[in-house]
């Protein structure tokens, strides 16, 4: 299985990288970890004329906390960088856990959080938990930079609002009141399997009253979606098993799954009910986990 020929660039600055993307237009692709781009090229699913590598932009691998801004995750941080990050482990273990259960160790050592977002695969594991925690992405292009809430970043399977000359540089997690969050993935195997259903939940608890909640569903719609009716159902109420079941049923109703080799639409919808309930319970009882 051979890769077709392509031009290769490894720019040492962001402006240079964006300039190359502007110059080649749709004929260029960014390569970060390569765990998605290279299989696609080998399988002739895409044939870019040029690859623009981010390998020399080492500032994009950092994960750190910045006062009044929140946690900044460099887009080139690998899944294992996220899983092992002391900053994330302290604040949002839920993100570390989501990263740790992706693909397999070899892929987690190369694949990047930016790539997981940019590829916009509906079953991707990181977007649901990042959206639940209010993540914002920073996009840098030839005309300057802008930020977009991750929730508004996806426009369809494989499609996002990023422009041809833009590079996703940072994922920003602003400080927030959530007392608990988690991502629960249901795959057909524990390792190396895409999510059949993925549910992320974030909650603000005050005693047994749920003050605020976010529920994000993965793999059951063209893009990760918020189950907003289910969130409303939960807000301001005292949490009981009965209420969580109702919220699960509501979230299932908001999902728009398809049938494919990994599961039928009916099955997926029912799994949304089950995993919404379980994820909420876990986030309520165990905090960020």
């Amino acid at each position, binding site marked *: *299985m*051979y*890769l*077709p*020929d*392509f*031009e*290769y660039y*490894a720019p040492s600055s962001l402006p240079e990288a964006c300039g190359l993307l502007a110059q080649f237009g749709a004929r260029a692709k960014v*390569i970060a970890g*390569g*765990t998605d781009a*290279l*299989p696609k090229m*080998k*399988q002739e699913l895409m044939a870019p004329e040029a*690859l623009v*590598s981010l*390998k020399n932009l080492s500032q994009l691998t950092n994960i750190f906390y910045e006062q009044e801004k929140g946690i900044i995750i460099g887009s080139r941080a690998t899944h*294992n960088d996220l899983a092992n990050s002391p900053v994330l482990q302290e604040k949002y273990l839920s993100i570390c856990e989501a990263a740790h259960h992706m*693909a*397999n*160790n*070899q*892929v987690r*050592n*190369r694949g990047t959080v930016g790539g997981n977002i940019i590829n916009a695969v509906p079953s991707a594991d990181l977007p649901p938990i990042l959206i639940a925690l209010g993540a914002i992405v920073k996009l840098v292009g030839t005309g300057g930079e802008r930020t977009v809430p991750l929730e508004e970043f996806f426009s369809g399977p494989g499609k996002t609002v990023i422009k041809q000359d833009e590079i996703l540089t940072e994922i920003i997690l602003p400080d927030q009141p959530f007392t608990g969050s988690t991502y629960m993935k249901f795959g057909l195997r*524990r*390792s*190396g399997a895409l999510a059949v259903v993925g549910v992320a939940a974030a909650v603000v608890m005050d005693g047994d009253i749920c003050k605020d909640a976010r529920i994000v569903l993965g793999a059951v719609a063209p893009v990760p979606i918020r189950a907003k009716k289910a969130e409303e159902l939960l807000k301001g109420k005292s949490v009981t098993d009965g209420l969580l079941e109702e919220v699960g049923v509501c979230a299932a109703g908001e999902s728009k799954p398809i049938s494919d080799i990994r599961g039928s639409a009916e099955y997926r919808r029912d799994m949304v009910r089950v995993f919404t309930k379980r994820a909420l319970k876990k986030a309520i009882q165990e905090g960020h986990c």
Partner: protein
Amino acid sequence: MQAITDNNGVKRYLITLNVNGDSYSRVVKANTTLANFLREELDLTGTKKGCELGDCGSCTVLLDDKPVDSCLVLAVEADGRHITTIEGLAQHEKLDKLQESFVNNAAVQCGYCTPGMIMSAKALLNRNPHPSEQEVREAIAGNLCRCTGYVNIVKAVLAAADEQ
């Protein structure tokens, strides 16, 4: 990284990789994968190619001490980095403890997955000298054994850990 264009306009890049302690400089095309670089440029054919899509782990090598699928790394992206392949484990013709343990525990059937399995296991023992069975299984989850001989493989890794 220096680019060299030949008379036909084909671009090649001068890269230097440290493989098993030795430094190698080669001129390669951008589409050369690390797996092909090791096998075809350096004749290090211990690294196997299976699915070539990052699912099977046969081509696992250590890139700066971390296991990666060498079929999903461009050689140009590994420029300046340290690579350890299965050929780099034995010292002075003495097999590594893991290799010995694979032999002693009959953890090899057809042998095709073995180099990748051992590299994944090596990376695990380097950072966690006494793993649990669950940790071993997790570490080799990205390595498929087409003979499905996982039981003895796990046994071999645990035995090698005990010996350390």
